[in-house]
């Protein structure tokens, strides 16, 4: 156990994404998926989610491609947040919430009975809509997640690397000991991204990470995103059509047809097609801003 995490990270940075599957044990390789789906993508089959007796999302199937950005869009209340939480079992933190269906990371079923949600969340990280830094120093905010995950390497280096990846390093390098709360909202959000990266997950889920931010911070996060997909698979919920069009490779449109129905994945395709020539009328109306 000299230091597998370190090695993994170095490889992440230096190697082409396609080669990454070789560096990880267990998850890679033998997927029988069609050419596009690589080992570290996710495959969701017939996912439904409930809050108590209320069904919020129904029957979603989707392939999330590795090293791509997948955007989820749709009107408010159609279940995007609910759905994205189900992808790393964060819904289990909400009392009364439950999900059915199959969610696979690579070829592992993360809903399997013997799967530990804690381990899963180490591999599928999440950034939330509202920045939620810990009441710790900037340094600790980044280091904490890695430390509880048993990271043994050079912590200073990891913190610096993660902050750089999140485009925050230059702004905070002189005040790492300051509280995370001393940062602006946009900086806090990038801090939250940095702490997620420090755990070195394979997939990063983001629920409207830029919704509360000014254009400059938003721009920084979008730039980050482009960098991130070199090393990670990214899923992002957004209300901003331009943002979805700019940063994503695939787009999923969630929609509720009749009031009171659960949300569905209405259409899912390459972003370019979704924004230029979608198959369904509702999608077109939505992306062109005719409603929602």
């Amino acid at each position: 156990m000299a230091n597998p995490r370190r090695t993994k990270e170095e490889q992440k940075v230096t190697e082409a994404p396609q080669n990454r599957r070789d560096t990880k044990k267990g998850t890679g390789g033998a997927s029988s998926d069609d050419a596009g789906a690589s080992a570290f993508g996710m495959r969701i089959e017939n996912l439904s989610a409930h809050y108590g007796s209320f069904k919020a999302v129904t029957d979603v199937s989707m392939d999330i491609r590795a090293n791509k950005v997948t955007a989820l869009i749709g009107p408010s209340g159609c279940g995007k947040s609910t759905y994205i939480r189900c992808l790393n079992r964060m819904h289990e933190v909400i009392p009364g919430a439950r999900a059915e269906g199959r969610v696979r990371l690579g070829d592992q079923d993360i809903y399997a009975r013997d799967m530990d949600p804690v381990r899963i969340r180490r591999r599928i990280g999440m950034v939330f809509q509202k920045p939620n830094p810990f009441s710790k120093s900037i340094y600790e905010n980044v280091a904490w997640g890695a430390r509880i995950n048993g990271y043994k390497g050079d912590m200073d280096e990891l913190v610096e690397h993660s902050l750089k990846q999140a485009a925050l390093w230059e702004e905070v390098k002189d005040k790492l000991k300051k509280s995370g709360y001393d940062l602006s909202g946009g900086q806090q959000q990038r801090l939250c991204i940095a702490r997620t990266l420090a755990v070195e997950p394979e997939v990063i889920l983001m629920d409207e990470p830029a919704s509360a931010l000014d254009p400059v911070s938003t721009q920084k996060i979008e730039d980050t995103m482009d960098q991130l997909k070199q090393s990670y698979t990214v899923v992002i919920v957004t209300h901003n059509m331009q943002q979805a069009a700019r940063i994503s490779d695939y787009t999923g449109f969630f929609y509720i047809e009749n009031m009171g129905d659960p949300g569905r994945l209405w259409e899912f395709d390459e972003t370019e097609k979704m924004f230029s020539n979608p198959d369904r009328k509702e999608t077109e109306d939505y992306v062109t801003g005719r409603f929602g």
Partner: protein
Amino acid sequence: MTVETRQGQGSGQNLWRESRARNVRERLVRVVLRACAYVSILTTFGIVFVLFGEAFTFFQDVSIVRFLTETQWTAGFATTPEDGEFGIIVLAWATIFSTIIACVVALPIGLGAAIYLSEYASAGLRRWLKPALEILAGVPTIVYGFFALTFVTPFLQGTILPGIQIYNILSASLVMGVMIIPTVASVSEDAIYAVPRGLREGAYALGATKREVATKVVVPAAISGIVASFVLGISRAVGETMIMAVAAGALAQLTVNPLESMQTMTAYIVQVTSGESPRGSLEYETIFAVGATLFVMTLLLNTIAYWFVRRFREVY
């Protein structure tokens, strides 16, 4: 602000008169509320004034140096300032000692209960346990006092500590600790519960276990409230009178043996005020000096707490 926006909705004619009537009401409310605030401040000042005034009289007979350096307390036997010893350390140590024992019981258990209630207990259980805890905090302390005297001491005597005296600081302090648990638990639970969901979720999303979330994220985030609850508990222990008077006895001695009787500052004041010593006698004067000391100790404690809470207050 509300007044102004509401005015806009009134019909033209009544607008002016209505707002005047309202202004009078607003002013009245303000005056009443201000009076309430001043009553408590003024009484506090009055008490401090009397306390320190009388204490000053005492210190003209017995110097502050003697008060702080002597190691015995024999005020009850002294007729003149010269033939007695007035070392406050004897009574103060009893207070500190009992507070320490009580806190060893109350702080960890109180905090543990708070963490359990807010992080682990189901919503239904919490709905029952929280009020139950608060009711417990309302049990009169005299009840705890004779519980210590008539149950805990005989129990300890019969089981693990045969050498324990009838009146002893240990039982009294242990029971006092139990008495303080609900206060600590309830106040820290409020603080812990107030930590935003988002913070917990952020930790879960990094692959933290429930224990890590509770102890390493939620508790640090609530630390100012938790410390406030600790100080509240300590203050109650320092000021607790009935349990000490009933179960710890009235032997003013300087010792570290918890199995023996000791007299705390509060218990001493009770003894003197309920005894025969006439107003103006030397013994009677001592209680103001003791009271003033108690006041200073509590003030110090609260100041530290105030500083701490402000220093570490979390802005989520």
